[in-house]
């Protein structure tokens, strides 16, 4: 390239206040290969774009440098401008003189010198750039949604309504997720099941949704538009088509009442064969192989009672894991959250004292379909509590455990305080030990005021300890509003634990190619502008797997993710990014180092006819991350648009050697 145009942006005063733009323009105009050098107040505006386009035509440019903001902001804008003027969009280079220069340097003279160097480097690189072609890729108009909680349900329904086939994979026997475990929702006090189950039914009945419950995604290959997914369907030991969900087997199971019931947070017991809750979707029985006598010992009485009683003859102990494969164009990840195990905070006595429970456990006690049939009792003696004390921020907003706010704890405690008052009457004492009440959502503050009005004691402070004494539990808390130390005697302590990433999120992140933040939650591509995108194109996140949020935010994000996903599915074909890796086979000796570092399975090691090896990049799978290029010990692996000689040309300029 030897007919290069340089276009320097003032960015209002963002650049011009610190960098002498005119000096940069003069300097650039004298560089080898540069035939025109201009500046404009806002190069990204229509006028700026036209200036570039006209210059390309007038000066017959074959390469363009735009000195402006970060390429993350406007590279695609200027690529389009260059393309519209008839050039290949990849003969463009951005010199970032805003984020990497004017914004970070106070001294005008030095900043101007640096801007000149950055422009000179970009010109040196453009001289070596080559035109690149965007390949077309066909889109599979189907979606995978991982996780059948409220976010996954919403995303599935939205996508299926738009006419796309949806595979919904849920690892538990039923969809519904955490919301199905809740009794009421804040601040409206809607019955959680009443608003959730219609959506669950819609999932079941929608012709476009294919539900894989009790199944897990084990591998994802491919790239945007064409992901190959493998799902393992775990054996229920119950014929899915024959089972009517009548529950006869559940009632006769010899293990009935002996197995801790995870849906009820282990407060109740179930049998080895079970249906997690009455509104389960799909409404099918599942046999727990860890608990079933027949599956464990090969013997259950004279013959398995479930088998005897099942009129549909649905019990099938010969079932095995089943591997299902399909292709999708996009993936929405909505795998939800875990609650922190409060045993991590020894001082609160969880798991040491029976009457210290969590909000989710209390939720099951309040629920009429819960282990006590809606009777709120202390787990230790099944007595109605005379005093209940909530401890907020258990592990949350705590430098030593979870730095973040769980965003639902305050409102959950307030809601439960209301429900306790409703269920237990006026004579129950309710205490809330809080750090700050964060009632930020719509109508949340009003709900908080309402609770403050109903004889609830608020202590602003984190209790130092929960102790068990002869006549019940006591809590020491220093109230920072009154500067007094209180000792609260109480019957039931309810901890509000931190919301944490699911314990399998690390493995899941690897399978789904979704990166995680330092907190362990899945990472959005941009916290403000791409909150549902991930760094892998075509993979979106929704709900609490991205970070703590309440139901309405989860639903909103799920609809957003579905909409983002539909943008892709609604296209017949996509243009693939050409800035990908390639192997120079003359130099590749097939050592396989690159194969080991590729996160996208985009490199194959080929054995040639002469028994020698060579690496090959599968272009459709390559994301252009550059890992293999850095790892290649011989320099045979290069990246288009970032070849060694192209990068070194810039380095030489910045290092003062050219």
């Amino acid at each position, binding site marked *: 390239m030897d007919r290069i145009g340089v276009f320097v942006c003032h960015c209002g005063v963002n650049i011009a206040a610190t960098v002498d733009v005119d000096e940069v323009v003069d300097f650039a105009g004298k560089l080898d290969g540069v035939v025109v050098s201009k500046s404009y107040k806002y190069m990204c505006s229509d006028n700026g774009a036209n200036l570039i386009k006209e210059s390309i035509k007038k000066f017959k440019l074959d390469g363009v440098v735009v000195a402006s903001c970060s390429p993350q902001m406007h590279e695609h804008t200027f690529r389009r401008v260059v393309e519209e003027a008839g050039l290949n969009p990849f003969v463009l280079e951005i010199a970032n003189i805003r984020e990497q220069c004017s914004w970070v340097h106070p001294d005008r003279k030095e900043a101007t010198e640096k801007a000149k160097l950055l422009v000179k480097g970009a010109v040196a690189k453009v001289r070596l750039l080559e035109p690149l072609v965007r390949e077309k890729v066909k889109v599979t108009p189907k979606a995978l949604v991982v996780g059948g909680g409220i976010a996954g349900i919403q995303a599935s329904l939205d996508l299926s309504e738009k006419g796309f086939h949806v595979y919904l994979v849920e690892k538990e026997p039923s969809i519904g997720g955490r919301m199905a475990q809740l009794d009421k929702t804040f601040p409206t006090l809607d019955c959680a099941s009443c608003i959730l189950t219609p959506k669950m039914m819609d999932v079941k009945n929608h012709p476009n949704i294919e539900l894989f419950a009790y199944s897990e995604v084990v591998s994802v290959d491919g790239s945007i538009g064409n992901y190959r997914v493998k799902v393992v369907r775990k054996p229920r030991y119950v014929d899915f088509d024959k089972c009517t969900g009548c529950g006869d087997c559940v009632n006769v199971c010899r293990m009935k009442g002996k197995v801790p019931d995870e849906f009820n947070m282990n407060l109740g017991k179930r049998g080895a064969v079970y249906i997690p809750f009455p509104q389960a979707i799909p409404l099918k029985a599942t046999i727990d192989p860890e608990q079933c006598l027949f599956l464990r010992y090969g013997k259950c009485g004279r013959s398995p009672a479930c088998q005897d009683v099942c009129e549909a003859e649905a019990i099938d102990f010969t079932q095995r894991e089943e591997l299902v494969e399909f292709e999708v164009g996009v993936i929405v990840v909505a795998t939800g959250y875990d609650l922190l195990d409060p045993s991590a905070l020894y001082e609160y006595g969880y798991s040491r004292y029976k009457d210290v429970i969590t909000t989710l456990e209390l939720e099951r006690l309040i629920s009429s379909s819960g282990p006590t049939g809606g009777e709120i009792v202390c787990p230790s003696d099944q007595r109605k509590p005379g005093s209940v004390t909530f401890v907020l921020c258990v592990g949350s907003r705590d430098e030593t455990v979870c730095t973040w706010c769980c965003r639902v704890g305050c409102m959950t405690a307030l809601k439960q305080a209301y429900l306790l008052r409703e269920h237990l009457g006026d004579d129950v004492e309710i205490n809330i030990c809080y750090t700050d009440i964060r009632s930020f959502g719509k109508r949340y503050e009003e709900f908080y005021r309402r609770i403050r009005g109903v004889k609830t004691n608020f202590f602003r402070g984190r209790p130092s300890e929960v102790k068990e004494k002869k006549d019940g539990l006591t809590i020491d808390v220093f109230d920072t509003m009154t500067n007094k130390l209180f000792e609260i005697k109480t019957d039931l302590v309810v901890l509000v634990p931190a919301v944490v990433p699911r314990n399998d999120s690390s493995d899941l992140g690897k399978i789904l190619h979704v990166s995680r933040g330092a907190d362990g939650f899945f990472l959005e591509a941009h916290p403000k502008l791409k909150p549902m995108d991930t760094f892998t194109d075509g993979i979106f996140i929704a709900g609490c797997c991205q970070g703590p949020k309440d139901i309405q935010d989860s639903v909103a994000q799920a609809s957003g993710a579905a909409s983002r996903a539909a943008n892709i599915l609604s296209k017949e074909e996509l243009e693939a990014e050409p800035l990908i890796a390639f192997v*120079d086979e*003359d130099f590749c000796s097939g*050592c396989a180092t690159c194969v080991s*570092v590729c996160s996208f399975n985009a490199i194959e090691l080929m054995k040639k006819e002469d028994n020698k090896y060579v690496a090959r990049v599968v272009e459709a799978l390559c994301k252009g991350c550059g890992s293999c290029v850095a790892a290649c*010990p011989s*320099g045979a692996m290069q990246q288009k648009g970032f070849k060694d000689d192209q990068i070194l040309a810039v380095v030489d300029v910045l290092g003062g050697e050219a």
Partner: protein
Amino acid sequence: MSSENKGKLKFAFYWAASCGGCEIAVLDINEKILEVVEHVDILFWPVAMDTKYSDVEAMDDESLDVCFFNGAIRTSENEHMAKLLRKKAKILVAFGSCAADGCIPGLANVSNREEIFDVAYVDNPSTDNPGKVTPKTKTRVSEGELTLPEFYDTVKTLDQVVDVDYYIPGCPPPTKLISQAIDAIVENKLPPKGSVLAPLKSVCDECPRERSEKKIKEIKRVYEVENVDPNVCLLEQGIICMGPATRGGCGAACLDANMPCTGCGGPTPNSFDQGAKMLSALASVLGVENEENMSEEEIRKLVDQVKDPLGTFYRYTLPRSLINRRVIKK
């Protein structure tokens, strides 16, 4: 170019800072040496012939067809001879790792003259040197003034001192490469100036071992591995093998002996820093499977398993690498 038409080719061999192995390598071409002598007159070869520097000085410029120069530039004598032979030879070949890359003598670039003299002549258990006498370029004795070449602080490659036409890598160069180079010279089929007279691909290309993914969990030294599998890539067995970052041409001879490549072939054509390339590769694959869950402490432990990183990654190429030498504080 046949000997009948144009007369015999005129060769010179010279050794600078080297161990002598390269000289042996020339003889290792065995009976081929007879063929060489048929086409070639050797005019200067200190290891084998009684010729003086003054004989070389007396030659016309460019009167030698080819000079094979082995050894690095350690002293002023090395430098003088490099410049002299450059002038006298039409083609100057950096022969062997020392001349091409700096090699083992080049590892002394982590030190300097003062420190080297101190260890060699003063401060070591087998030396009794109360006067702390170290070599001087000029020494007065009763008979007159004695002189020695100057010992430099920094070892240089041949091309850091004079213009070099071709390179033959290896410590010492494999006989196959030497034979091919001589054939090319005799048949006048040399590639463009500046070429390395060796294959483009790395040692792995010639290595018959099975290889797959390199997800290395720990690094071991050869003696720490019981039963090294002779059929599987050594890197995959946790042994650092420089093969992937090293230019081939040796037929993977070390691998054939079930020992790792130590990198004497120097960098591959697309890389200018062999050590950095290998470091980058190893850093990419070391603990790659569990990277995210590793603490800084665990990562450091893993990396600390690399004993003698400089001697491992830069054994043959320190003087021509980016780091080049330890910074001398004035």
